[in-house]
């Protein structure tokens, strides 16, 4: 999709607001035009060069009335335009966030969070800015056409002299477009590096302090900032420079009018009123030049912004970015839509057939994976680092888009796993849980209504009960950014509680117990598997989990090497034997 396509879809998303915006802009243009002929009549009457039947007082009254109306309508227009601006930006940000949440494995995974934030902030604002300029542009264009018509009737040569420099400006603008886009993209990237580095430093505070590397980190941050300053300055100089060219056109136009008009005035073909009309319209023509220039600039920069936003999504999905969406700005937040629980959807079996996904950069991933998980079973995925265990789980969940293969629920193909594999069908605990700077309760519930779920049951099954008793504020305890106030094991069990409270039919668990001691881990598996009708597909490095498994799937270099029970695999699967004996030094 090109920039125009994006823009058009955004405008169509809120058609009434866009129309109102344009309508107000048109009225303002007419109100800007009207004083011209009135002024002309006023001066011509004063100099006795023309006679219309209206006295000077009435003309002054008309001018005042127009000024008043213009003030009121402009104020309204600014409010409407700001609202439109805000809603466009919010829609873009909302859609982007929705896609990132649905597909966390896509583009955003390849850059630091801070850099993604810069896209949310600056690029969405850039697009909203273009739409505001386009609506304002309508006003200016209506004015220009009206003014052109009025002026041409008086003196076509002088009119060309006024509008000529404008054309020249637009030509200069067009020539500078490519450079403008490149400068903008580079300065945005530099900004992304700075914000990204801020996020990394925040996450690494302890490591940096232990290493005593505070000053080196600050020096590094200075270098990134200096680079950003340099690129932003270059960007700003070009943008402002082009703006100055537009503005200079006005001065040039005034000079030309004076030169041409002097002769005509003497010859009597040009009245003082005519001169007043030209002089009154001239600044507006300058404004027109500026707006055309700014719009062209902004259009190019918005193209860069669109590309940067779409880069976070799949190519085919970029139209989702501009789709109209409810923003829920007032009143209580809408409840989560309940999933239709049809009896034929009751979970019986989950399958993957020939599932393939390869990471773009490393080429690692999964190739042709077949697996099947039946209701009530505990299936464990094993394999060494880089075997594709986490990739497999994330592809099953639709977080990573499969290149080939199919996922089936009760034998039926699932078209969009990322929207299908959600609670209460599927719940998931990632390898590194993401906790928020909020209360423990909100971190576990994540928006579920507390009265509708078994929170104490989930906490018990997650072996978090004993820890909870020691927390001063219980479930209301604030756990700090990324859950820093919890121990590593508590973070993992809070994530397990978050998964369990969803009471999903199928649980996907990625290496849940790596920060747990043996006894806590044993309790966790017992608690998990004791839940009635629980089906678990887990990645685990721990023998404790392997021993509980009904079936083990051995992954090796992204392919399924063998499937079977632990005893069976220890006899016939060499990779399993190696994984097993690698942990032999335990005693």
């Amino acid at each position, binding site marked *: 999709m090109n920039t125009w396509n994006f823009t058009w879809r955004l405008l169509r998303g809120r058609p009434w607001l866009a129309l109102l915006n344009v309508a107000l802009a048109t009225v303002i243009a007419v109100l800007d035009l009207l004083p011209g002929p009135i002024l002309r009549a006023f001066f011509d009457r004063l100099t006795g060069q023309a006679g219309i039947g209206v006295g000077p007082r009435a003309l002054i009254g008309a001018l005042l009335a127009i000024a008043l109306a213009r003030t009121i309508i402009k104020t309204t227009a600014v409010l409407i335009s700001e609202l439109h601006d805000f809603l466009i930006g919010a829609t873009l940000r909302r859609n982007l966030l929705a896609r990132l949440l649905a597909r966390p494995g896509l583009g955003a995974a390849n850059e630091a969070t801070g850099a993604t934030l810069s896209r949310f902030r600056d690029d969405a604002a850039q697009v909203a800015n273009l739409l505001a300029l386009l609506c304002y542009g309508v006003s200016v264009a209506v004015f220009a056409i009206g003014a052109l018509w009025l002026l041409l009737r008086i003196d076509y040569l002088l009119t060309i002299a006024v509008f000529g420099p404008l054309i020249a400006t637009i030509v200069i603008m067009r020539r500078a477009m490519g450079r403008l886009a490149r400068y903008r993209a580079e300065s945005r990237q530099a900004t992304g590096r700075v914000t990204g580095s801020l996020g990394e430093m925040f996450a690494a505070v302890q490591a940096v302090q232990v290493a005593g590397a505070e000053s080196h980190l600050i020096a590094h941050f200075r270098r990134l900032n200096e680079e950003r300053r340099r690129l932003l300055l270059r960007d700003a100089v070009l943008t402002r420079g082009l703006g100055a060219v537009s503005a200079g056109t006005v001065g040039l136009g005034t000079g030309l009018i004076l030169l041409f008009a002097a002769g005509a005035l003497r010859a009597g073909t040009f009245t003082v009123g005519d001169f007043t009309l030209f002089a009154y319209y001239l600044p507006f023509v300058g404004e027109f030049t500026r707006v055309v220039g700014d719009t062209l600039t902004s259009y190019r920069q918005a193209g860069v912004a669109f590309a940067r936003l779409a880069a976070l999504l799949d190519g085919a999905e970029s139209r989702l970015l501009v789709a109209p969406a409810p923003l829920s700005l007032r009143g209580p937040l809408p409840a989560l839509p309940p999933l239709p629980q049809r009896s034929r959807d009751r979970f019986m079996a989950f399958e993957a057939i020939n599932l393939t996904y390869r990471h773009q950069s490393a080429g690692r991933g999964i190739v042709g994976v077949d697996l099947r998980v039946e209701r009530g079973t505990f299936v464990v995925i094993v394999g060494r680092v880089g075997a594709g265990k986490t990739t497999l789980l994330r592809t099953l969940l639709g977080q990573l888009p499969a290149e080939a293969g199919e996922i089936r629920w009760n034998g039926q193909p699932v078209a969009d796993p990322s929207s299908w594999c959600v609670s209460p069908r599927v719940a998931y605990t990632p390898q590194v849980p993401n906790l928020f700077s909020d209360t423990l309760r909100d971190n576990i519930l994540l928006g579920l209504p507390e009265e509708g779920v078994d929170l104490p049951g989930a906490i018990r099954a997650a072996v978090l009960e004993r820890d909870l008793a020691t927390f001063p504020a219980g479930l209301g305890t604030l756990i700090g950014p990324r859950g820093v106030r919890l*121990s590593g*094991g508590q973070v993992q069990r809070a994530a397990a509680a978050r998964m369990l409270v969803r009471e999903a039919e199928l649980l996907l668990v990625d290496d849940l117990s790596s920060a747990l*001691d043996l006894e806590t881990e044993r309790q966790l598996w017992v608690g998990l598997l004791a839940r009635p009708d629980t089906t678990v597909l887990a990645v685990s490095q721990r023998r404790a989990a392997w021993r509980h498994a009904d079936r083990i799937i051995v992954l090796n270099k992204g392919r399924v090497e063998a499937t079977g029970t632990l005893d069976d695999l220890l006899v016939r699967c060499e990779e399993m034997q190696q994984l097993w004996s690698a942990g032999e030094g335990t005693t």
Partner: protein
Amino acid sequence: MSFSYDGTDLTLDGVSFTLAPGRTISLLGRTGSGKTTLARLLLRFHDPMGGTIRLDGVDIRAARIAELRARIGLVTQEVQLFAASIRDNLTFFDPAVPDHALLTAIDGLGLGAWFDALPAGLDTILAPGATSLSAGEAQLLALVRVFLTDPGLVILDEASSRLDPATERLIAGALDRLLAGRTGIIIAHRLATLRRVDTILVLEGGRIVEQGPREALMRDHGSRFARLLAADFASNLPTDPSTDPAGRA
């Protein structure tokens, strides 16, 4: 020493122990028992509410924090990486560290083969969010970071708990070299890392509930450590020992 995060509940409650130079101690205990807090006190992220910590007989509060931390290396389970070159990740952006020092550290930890497989050596750029490295490789980088600063005391906090056993074995060699001739504190859930340890210290609810030489505690079947070992051993047996191909049963 004693410590509390909120001023009322004691996370550490009257903990005393001595660690001789060149020896290695292991802190065991269930999750939330205060092990990581103890390490944070040593590095002066917090100061104990009661009691003192002495390094070579000197209260650590008497030293400058930078000097104290320069003598201690810490490896945690989460390794924080930057979207930058391997070189900058190892040196924390210190341009004064020469490349040969980095290469010596990498060789010294026995990671030459791993390093040779990197596409652009020290200039290899890591993707943001460390997506281009496995958890094991990230741990290797963390070990080189510590080895570079040549600290007298090394603290390993769950340093290898997210690795598969095969990768863990690769790292075990590097760990052995890192700890050689240094004083070590190993915080671990998994007992596989404990071969290097001289003394065992078991924490529970912020108190030391067992303390002693590893060998002695192993022989004493009533000790908590022996029970932990037995539980770990049992969990590692296949369900039917007769089918164990290596005959470990």
